[in-house]
């Protein structure tokens, strides 16, 4: 359920969303998700719940930056709702820079939350730190991505694993704690002899096992695993995934599994939340998400993953461009600049692909990526004509597919018009031309969260009240 906090949502929308929140809560509970341990009774409050939480990093170092520096905050997490149930594995998946790691750390108050609130078993733990957060630390633990970097190089494995017990006063004597540590080492598949070794004396896989052991010292209820296997080789990765799976069933652990690897998600998760540029754009039970993805970004993501079995390869929708900067996210739906299914205006006569091509031209003009002078020098290097018309035609050639598909006449006119304006340097005029010619609802309004089978999607196409049919892709 995402709503970018800065755009003023229409009043009607706010009520309906809150209604949905309760609705989807029950949906999640009752949905027949595959894994046995996930169909906990819906009455029970979720183990960990995040309501519209945000985490902004300000880039300015000191007052000078505020004065003239680039003071826009980086909105790493921007209005995210999330729930993890007891014994369930929720995968948070997304590409680099989408804020999934920040979300994981903010949930455990390892990063100070900027907005929204976090509840653990119904109790509000938003922004707690130090001694206030201490009791909750016993139940909420974390496993880190870089196995070696998360272990203090100057401490032995024994000291590392005893530290949590000393901090929380578990176990009367040092011998008792050492005994518990031996037990833990066995649990994660390491040998007792490893007790007085230093982190650097282990392989990557073994180091990660120590990381897991440390998370288990306080017998937590939930573990946030931040890309636990990304830094490991395939064969070792499988060992750690196996270990996590066994421990989860054995200790009835809830697991919040942050990763970019969709193949791992399919084998580990009960439910999946897909993140893009600080927002959760779709959540669904794992089988539902892989069988029937609803959000265009999820569809593109799934289609992009290479598959070993040729028969399983669907036709690939390749996303263009790169992820925009989280300090200056696109307005409305943040995915609209790259979305292959961006909704054309009602009167658009051409096909979706044509609109997408025209819309890409629009974004390039607005992003001032087209430099007419550079094109002019290139023309002169090719000893071609270098007047404004030549530059204009060179610009349009790229965006007006003059082959089979015929762009609607007014669209072609608008592109040529904008190109001509660009050629003789009137960038602002070119911008207004393209904005008027190629509007899209995706750009004006932030998509509402439409509940789906066991989750939700934030996309206008899926939203019944909005134009555009959901299955255009």
């Amino acid at each position: 359920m995402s709503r970018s906090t800065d755009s003023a949502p229409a009043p009607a929308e706010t009520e309906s969303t809150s209604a949905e929140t309760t609705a989807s809560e029950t949906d999640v509970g009752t949905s027949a998700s595959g894994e046995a341990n996930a169909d906990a009774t819906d009455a029970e409050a979720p183990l960990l719940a995040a309501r519209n939480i945000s985490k902004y990093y300000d880039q300015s170092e000191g007052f000078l930056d505020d004065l003239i520096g680039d003071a826009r905050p980086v909105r790493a997490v921007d209005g995210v709702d999330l729930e993890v149930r007891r014994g369930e594995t929720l995968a948070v998946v997304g590409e680099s820079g989408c804020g999934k790691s920040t979300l994981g750390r903010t949930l455990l108050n390892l990063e100070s939350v900027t907005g929204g609130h976090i509840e653990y078993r119904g109790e509000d733990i938003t922004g707690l730190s130090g001694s206030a957060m201490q009791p909750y630390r016993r139940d909420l633990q974390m496993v880190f991505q870089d196995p070696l970097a998360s272990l203090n190089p100057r401490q032995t494995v024994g000291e590392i694993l005893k530290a949590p017990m000393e901090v929380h006063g578990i176990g009367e004597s040092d011998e008792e704690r050492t005994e518990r540590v031996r037990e833990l080492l066995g649990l994660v598949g390491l040998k007792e002899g490893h007790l007085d070794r230093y982190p650097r004396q282990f392989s990557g896989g073994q180091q990660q096992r120590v990381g897991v052991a440390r998370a288990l010292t306080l017998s937590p209820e939930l573990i946030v695993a931040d890309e636990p296997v990304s830094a490991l080789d395939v064969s070792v990765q499988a060992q750690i995934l196996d270990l996590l799976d066994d421990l989860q069933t054995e200790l009835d652990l809830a697991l919040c599994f942050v990763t970019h690897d969709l193949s791992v998600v399919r084998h580990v998760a009960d439910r999946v939340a897909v993140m893009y540029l600080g927002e959760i754009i779709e959540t669904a039970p794992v089988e539902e998400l892989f069988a029937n993805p609803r959000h265009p970004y999820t569809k593109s993501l799934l289609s992009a993953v290479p598959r070993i079995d040729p028969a399983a390869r669907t036709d690939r929708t390749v996303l263009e461009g790169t992820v925009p900067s989280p300090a200056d996210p696109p307005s409305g739906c943040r995915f609209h600049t790259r979305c292959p299914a961006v909704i054309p205006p009602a009167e658009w006569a051409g096909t979706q692909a044509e609109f997408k091509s025209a819309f890409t031209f629009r974004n390039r003009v607005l992003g001032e990526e087209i430099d007419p002078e550079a094109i002019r020098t290139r023309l002169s290097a090719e000893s071609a004509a270098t007047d404004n018309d030549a530059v204009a035609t060179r610009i349009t050639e790229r965006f007006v597919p003059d082959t089979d598909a015929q762009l609607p006449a007014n669209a072609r006119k608008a592109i040529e018009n904008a190109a001509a304006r660009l050629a003789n340097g009137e960038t602002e005029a070119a911008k207004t031309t393209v904005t008027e010619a190629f509007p899209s609802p995706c750009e004006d309004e932030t998509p509402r969260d439409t509940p789906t089978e066991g989750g939700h999607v934030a996309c206008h196409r899926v939203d019944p009240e909005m134009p555009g049919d959901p299955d255009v892709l």
Partner: protein
Amino acid sequence: MNDEPPNARSNPDHERTRNAETDGGLDPGIGRNSPSEPEPTETPPFGEPMDVPPEYRQEESVVEHRSLRSRIVRGLREDKLALFGAVVVVGFVLVAVFAPYVAPYDPGATFGFMQSPDSYSQADVDGDGSIERVWHPLGTDSFGYDVLSRIIFGARVSLAVALATVLVAFTIGTAIGLAAGFYGGWIDSVLMRYVDFQWAFPEIILGVAIIAFAGGRGVENVVIAIGIAYIDDFARLIRGEVLSLREEEYVTAARAIGMSNRRIMTKEILPNAVAPLIVQATLMIPLAILAEAGLSFLGLGVSPTTPTWGLLLSDGRQFISRAWWISVMPGIAIMVVVLAFNTLGDGLRDIFDVSDSEVEQR
């Protein structure tokens, strides 16, 4: 020379992060190929490999973990320059401490004026009334004092001043750096503005200002002046060190298990910040010696009653054409000791594998 498993370092094919599987290796002794017991649950369908026949067993290449001290000893044995530095530094400290026993004559005893090095003069040294031939390896100065004895006694003051100065700079600088690095926010920006501000005052300016305040020269003024002048180096270094350590994942892990800030500071951050501190302190001593010599040379340093090498060198300045050795000999002494500290500091930096950027060059 750091103790990273060499094969991980030399194995050029580590696309993954270094700590991936390359330095695992088999377990010692038993050929159980998996470093871990078989999974607690049933054996994986992929099947459990047979035991490695004894004659083929490779002892596991466990990377040896050496404490700070043993790494220093090992490092010095290998790095000849650092060894030279260590030997000279130890010699200098011994000479300074046992000056009265080492010096051939009493620094105050007067002999022939401005006698050239390796010359003799007649004097009653041992007070038994008889005149003996007295050897001056480094000659005598304009007051007839034996240059070598003056240098030996001068060593004591120079060392004392240098150590005191480094202590001042170390304590205040580290405190500022720790506070700025660990707490960040406005504390950090205020302290860092102070450091930038202080950077505009090299040690001679501070020396002059302090003398104007305290009204007069003396060892204390010199120590304060140079001490303050080098606070910004330590502050900037420690702040950088703490900032980078604070971002380390094992510090986040410590917070994740609920460790208090204080314990994180003492147990997680400081032990790892010790190495650059030692290196910077070692490199600071020679700078302090040079700074003190500079101040004394300008006449703003210590008072004549407690001559340091800088003062000796400065006194000999007017006689440079007639008796060059009065200035040159203490100058050489300064050079040798400063060189020793520099080579030792450099050696320590490599031993601790502290990258150049971490240690300020001043």
